[in-house]
């Protein structure tokens, strides 16, 4: 049977979700294998080396770089405080003494007799990594972090902004076609993850931020409105570090596009449940998509469902979404995968799939399809 590989976004009722929680540099792991964790639990911590200040001591004292060692009154590695004299030079006959004060609290790291510069380092910056989601510690990565695992419902979005967030899921629109309007967002949604249908306007999203909503999950948003949010035109889809307060996960794309039935139903099923979301997106080799993880309680876990999702191709019968004009956003079932190349309206020769959408058969390049991976 014809079979084609196509990338897909995961919409899974139950999956074994694993998350690496690693420090940027080596440090201390605070949990042990098998420990149960909550999203806010700190699992590892470390200190990043402090910022560096370079002080041109020889210039300030009007001496040659080679004389710097004579002028320094603090030794390498010694702690110093802001305003403390670190070097001095007696002037003529001991008069007109000049000195150099430390601009920071920290330590003297090194002194160069070639450039006459003293390198001062500020206090280390503590960094902590939390668990992000409820679950248990599956694995310890020595000195770096842990792997948290949980059985969870798992949904991938297509694009997001803002980093990790968490909160209770609240469905604010009555159907997957509906927009999230500003008036739908109230103070009650503070700290919650609100879910809407097809679209959120810039105005409504700004209202969500003002109401301190933890996150928004919605079908679409306007690309040109991103600039107002980010302060720059998003040229390359690498996000996650924006300080927006309210993470945004788009499940379908830019524009007004109804949320897929599967995604909306699954989120509805888990209304009032606690979820972790991450808007971070990287569309490059090694793609990262935004995600919604809803850890399951014992009583929600089913043994019938296959946990491991397989990267499989499309076949006749596969449920797919068309991801490019002229049929952008339509969802249908593959009826046939002809093996010969076919000429499109653009005259591009491609392998196509025949898709049944609302009773009509459409021919679409296979690369313009997205598999809806479900269980």
């Amino acid at each position, binding site marked *: 049977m014809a079979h084609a590989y196509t*990338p897909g976004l995961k919409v899974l009722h139950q999956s074994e979700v694993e998350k690496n929680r690693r420090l940027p*540099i080596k440090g201390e792991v605070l949990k042990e294998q098998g420990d149960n964790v909550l999203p806010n639990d700190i699992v590892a911590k470390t200190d990043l*080396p402090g*910022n*560096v*200040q*370079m002080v041109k001591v020889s210039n300030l004292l009007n001496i040659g*770089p080679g004389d710097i060692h004579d002028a320094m009154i603090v030794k390498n590695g010694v702690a110093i405080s802001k305003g403390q004299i670190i070097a001095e030079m007696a002037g003529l006959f001991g008069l007109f003494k000049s000195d150099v004060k430390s601009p920071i609290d920290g330590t003297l*790291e*090194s002194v*160069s007799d*070639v*450039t*006459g*510069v003293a*390198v001062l*380092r500020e206090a280390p910056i503590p960094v902590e990594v939390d668990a992000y989601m409820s679950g248990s510690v599956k694995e310890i990565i020595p000195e770096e972090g842990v792997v948290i695992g949980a059985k969870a419902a798992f949904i991938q979005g*297509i*694009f997001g902004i803002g980093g990790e967030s968490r909160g209770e899921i609240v469905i604010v629109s009555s159907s997957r076609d509906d927009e999230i309007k500003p008036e739908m967002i109230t103070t009650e949604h503070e700290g919650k993850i609100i879910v809407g249908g097809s679209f959120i306007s810039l105005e409504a999203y700004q209202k969500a931020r003002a109401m301190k909503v933890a996150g928004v999950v919605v079908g679409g948003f*306007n*690309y*040109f409105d991103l600039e107002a949010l980010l302060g720059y*035109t*998003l*040229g*390359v*889809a690498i996000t996650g570090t924006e300080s927006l307060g309210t993470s945004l996960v788009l499940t379908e*794309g*830019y*524009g007004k596009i109804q949320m897929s039935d599967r995604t909306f139903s699954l989120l509805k099923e888990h209304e009032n449940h606690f979820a972790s979301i991450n808007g971070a*997106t990287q*569309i*490059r*080799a*090694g793609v990262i998509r935004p995600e919604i993880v809803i850890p399951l309680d014992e009583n929600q876990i089913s043994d019938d469902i296959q946990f491991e999702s397989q990267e499989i191709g499309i076949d006749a019968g596969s449920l797919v979404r068309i*991801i*490019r*004009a*002229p049929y*952008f956003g339509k969802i249908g079932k593959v009826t046939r995968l002809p093996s010969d190349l076919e000429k*499109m*309206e*653009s*005259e*591009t*020769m*491609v392998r196509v799939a025949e898709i049944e959408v609302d009773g009509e058969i459409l021919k*679409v*390049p296979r*690369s*313009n399809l*997205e598999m809806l991976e479900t269980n």
Partner: protein
Amino acid sequence: MKLNSILATDCGSTTTKAILIENIEGEYRLTVRGEAPTTVEAPFEDVTKGVLNAVMEVEELAGRKLLDGDNIMSPQKDGVGVDIYISTSSAGGGLQMMVAGAVKSMTGESAERAALSAGSIVMDVIASNDGRLPHEKIKRIRQLRPDMILLAGGTDGGTVSHVVELAEILRAANPKPRLGQNYKLPVIYAGNTKAQKQIQEVLGDIVDLDMVENIRPTLEGENLGPSRDKVHDLFMEHVMAQAPGYKKLMSWTDAPIMPTPGAVGSLIEMIAKEQDISVVGVDIGGATTDIFSVFSGKFNRTVSANLGMSYSVCNVLAEAGLDNVLRWVPLDIDRKELTNRIGNKMIRPTTVPQSLEELIIEQAIAREALRLSFEQHKAFAVALKGVQTTRTISDAFEQSGSGQSLVNMMELDLLVGSGGVLSHAPRRAQSARMMIDAFQPEGITQLAVDSIFMMPQLGVLANIDKESLSKEARKAALEVFHKDCLIRLGTCITPVGKTKSKALILTADLTFTDGTSKTIQLREGDFIQMDAPHEPIKAKLTPAKKMDIGGGVGEIIQTEIYGGVTGLVFDGRGRPLDIPTDQGKRLELLRKWSEAVSEYPDVKAIEVSI
């Protein structure tokens, strides 16, 4: 040594491409190509799996055995195996470097040129006078996590303090390499030789330090060769050796693996030298656009890291502006709707244009991506470049971005395009139009596209050092380049100068190989296409009084020109190309130009949507 067969792969970020070159009756020809997804990343994490898959496809198509289990059989014996196996790589984001120099426009620029010509992406240029405070530089170095750093600064025997200060900044930043946590970052020192001892003292214990000859031994001389070679060595020894599977891959190849753009650049340099011509080559990819040029024997490469057709497509929109993209689109499209569409292409980068409208929009974006990349190239390709080149002291002070560009469009002989949007355009006329509109060649310029982007493999083939192989490998690379790699589109003939609207600007008297002849009269504003095969055509080109076709204002040229799959294009639209802002006039012109070269299947279809 005579070679019977050569297998070459190029491991890209997403696809690994394999080609088989065979000696057929004394001639080297490309016989088969195959491809497979690259397997550097999870779940495979072994580049050789993708290589083997691509080679397996070649095996099947060629109908001969090349693999013995997981090994490439070499040398060829009884029709089994190949004589040489070579590879290039840009997987995992290619080679990402940071360079540092004492003065930004001098040693900083020399270091940047060396890194670019070695095939790397230059993430940042740190210089003593770059306007940033030391702690800002330190923060930047820490953030970037380059694969390698090239540190230059000072002429030999000159001051040491600036370059040592840069080393101290590097030390304070203590940069960590991007790939792998357990090895030291490679740093090449190519500055004042007098400072080598101090540099060793400052950096020796925290990085993997290599010393090479000064990149700028004197103010008026540049010596990029040793730094470029060292970058290539370290690329394989340190950087790629950290990437999954590369140690194994390195043990298979008969020549060191080169960074993909480095291989392409060296091939273009070689072609220009061999034919004594000026060449511009462009590779427009999903994320980046590389431009290579050789003018007056000087090679330059630039990489526009965020100008591409999928991952970076929104950045083209951001940098060019929507109006500049839309000026190439003969349709009346809702602007907001268009930005959402382009945004959706960015987040779903693998899609292809199904409708004609989508294709037209994509090709409009490509024109702007190419135009912007070429502008960046022209600004960078100033003054000298090349191995062991010497220049005068007066040139040394013109080395700024605003200095005189080496790029002279009237001098350009050959423009080669590659990358999906150019190589796979449904009609070749579309590739020709995109290249003419974006680069705006002047005088007589041959146009070509790399049919399947095999320049990387041919580049590494032409660079084999092994004495017993090098001569024959180079011969093979050149033969395949000319016979199988390039699709000759034809020649663009553009007189340049000030003239009146609709005035006669050029008379071209053409005599074909079959003895027939034809005269073309080109008026200002005309855009004329004429079918002509890739054969020598005798041409007498008579420009109008104030026009120049390459020989000087009003000078007649008698020369040989070549047609190709799109024939000859006579471009009287003027330079720079001026597109009216009035919607009606613009659409009329766009349609006229499009029809002139049969660019799109049904221009009427375009009219319907307006």
